[in-house]
């Protein structure tokens, strides 16, 4: 499971923080074992290897008990199948299980892939995810100490220009407010067992977890609506162009005073934020919907099939990804992917919040009142200000040219 997730991450260029532990986890490979002494059944070496957490060839243990001989008589045992065979069949999903309620997922009585999911969730996912957030805050604090607040270099004019209309600001805050709530409640659900319980106890965590789950599930719709609105409003302004190269060449002027590269409505940094939010937010929404409606929207087996067709997993040395997944495996992949992508987006958004508030003078006004000082606009979005001014000029000229009725 970890290997497959890594392939997905690499495919999206997010492999950094997770590559090391996953690679280490997968270092052990299945080994050929001589089972002639046991007639092909598992050996002591198999048992020891399993206890060491190594990969074991379970072919012999996956036999279907139905293929065993029939029960000898009424007082007989399980026929040719032993209890061990029955449990093996249940474990490997080959037993014929009948249930009175639920779909295919209800017929899975043992799903040992769940242990890998749990270990990854409580191990690398939580550890590296939290370090990513802490590290991001640390880097920003360091940047603030070195660079300080990015101030408006020129004199403020006192004249303002409308940067964002009310509906745009509504969409932004619908998405931003819900994202912060989702981030906090998501972290509480993910890390509560290890962080909240030791401090506040089980009773308190029970209440917090239930509340967080309710909020997380239901606030998600506001985030998705805001995401769609922002995409519609701003996609046209976020298409990369040559101006972005000029902006990137001088680091957007973020690292040196008095440097103001030309930019239209959105500069290259803001375009990076926009596309991160749209793509990662879209991916989080997709996996979130899969989690909101358990077993109704499986998407990973199909995704793996598409990835396999590209040849990317094999190219990266991860072999062919599984295209047949148990219902529970689909949910486990959805949960892990949801959390991994959310951590990445949270780190990016922490940077966005910094530069939009304490990091830059005048930036908050753009989303607060929607009005920015012309000097701020001139320094940070010079080309956009020229466009606005020329439009205003053209509008006033046409108004003046219209004869009075």
């Amino acid at each position, binding site marked *: 499971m970890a290997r497959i997730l890594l392939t997905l991450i690499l495919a999206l260029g997010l492999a950094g923080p997770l590559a090391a532990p996953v690679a280490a986890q997968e270092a052990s490979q299945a080994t050929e074992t001589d089972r002639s002494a046991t007639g092909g059944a598992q050996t002591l070496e198999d048992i020891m290897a399993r206890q060491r957490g190594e990969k074991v060839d379970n072919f012999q243990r996956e036999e279907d008990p139905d293929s065993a001989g029939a029960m000898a008589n009424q007082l007989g045992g399980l026929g040719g199948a032993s209890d061990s065979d029955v449990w093996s069949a249940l474990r490997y999903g080959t037993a014929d299980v009948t249930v*009175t309620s*639920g779909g295919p997922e209800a017929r899975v009585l043992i799903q040992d892939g769940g242990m890998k999911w749990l270990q990854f969730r409580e191990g690398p996912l939580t550890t590296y995810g939290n370090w990513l957030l802490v590290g991001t805050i640390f880097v920003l604090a360091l940047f603030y100490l070195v660079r300080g607040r990015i101030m408006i270099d020129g004199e403020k004019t006192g004249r303002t220009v409308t940067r964002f209309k009310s509906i745009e*600001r509504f969409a932004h805050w619908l998405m931003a407010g819900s994202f912060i709530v989702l981030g906090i409640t998501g972290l509480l659900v993910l890390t509560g067992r290890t962080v909240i319980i030791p401090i506040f106890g089980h009773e308190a965590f029970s209440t917090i977890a239930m509340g967080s789950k309710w909020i997380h599930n*239901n606030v998600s719709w506001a985030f998705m609506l805001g995401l769609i609105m922002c995409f519609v409003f701003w996609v046209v302004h976020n298409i990369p162009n040559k101006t972005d190269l000029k902006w990137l060449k001088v680091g957007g002027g973020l690292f040196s005073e008095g440097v103001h590269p030309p930019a239209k409505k959105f500069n290259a940094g803001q375009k990076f934020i926009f596309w991160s939010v749209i793509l990662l937010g879209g991916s989080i929404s997709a996996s979130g919907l899969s989690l909101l409606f358990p077993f109704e929207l499986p998407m990973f087996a199909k995704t793996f099939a598409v990835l396999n067709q590209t040849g990317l997993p094999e190219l990266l040395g991860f072999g062919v990804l599984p295209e047949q997944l148990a219902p529970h495996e689909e949910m486990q992949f959805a949960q892990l992917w949801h959390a991994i992508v959310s951590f990445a987006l949270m780190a990016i958004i922490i940077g966005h919040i910094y530069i939009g508030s304490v990091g830059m003078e005048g930036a908050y006004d753009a989303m607060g009142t929607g009005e920015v000082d012309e000097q701020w606009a001139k320094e940070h979005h010079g080309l956009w200000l020229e466009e606005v001014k020329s439009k205003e000029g053209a509008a006033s000229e046409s108004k003046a040219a219209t004869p009075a009725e």
Partner: protein
Amino acid sequence: MKAMYTAFLATAVIAVGAWYTLGEIGFSASDRNTGNAVRLDDG
């Protein structure tokens, strides 16, 4: 600032609306996984 506060209010309204609607149309986990022989609610 009005747009921001309206958005926060809308978030709360959408959340309650989603919870009520999904519950009404039977999309809660207990509704989806219940049956004649399985009782997951309090009744």
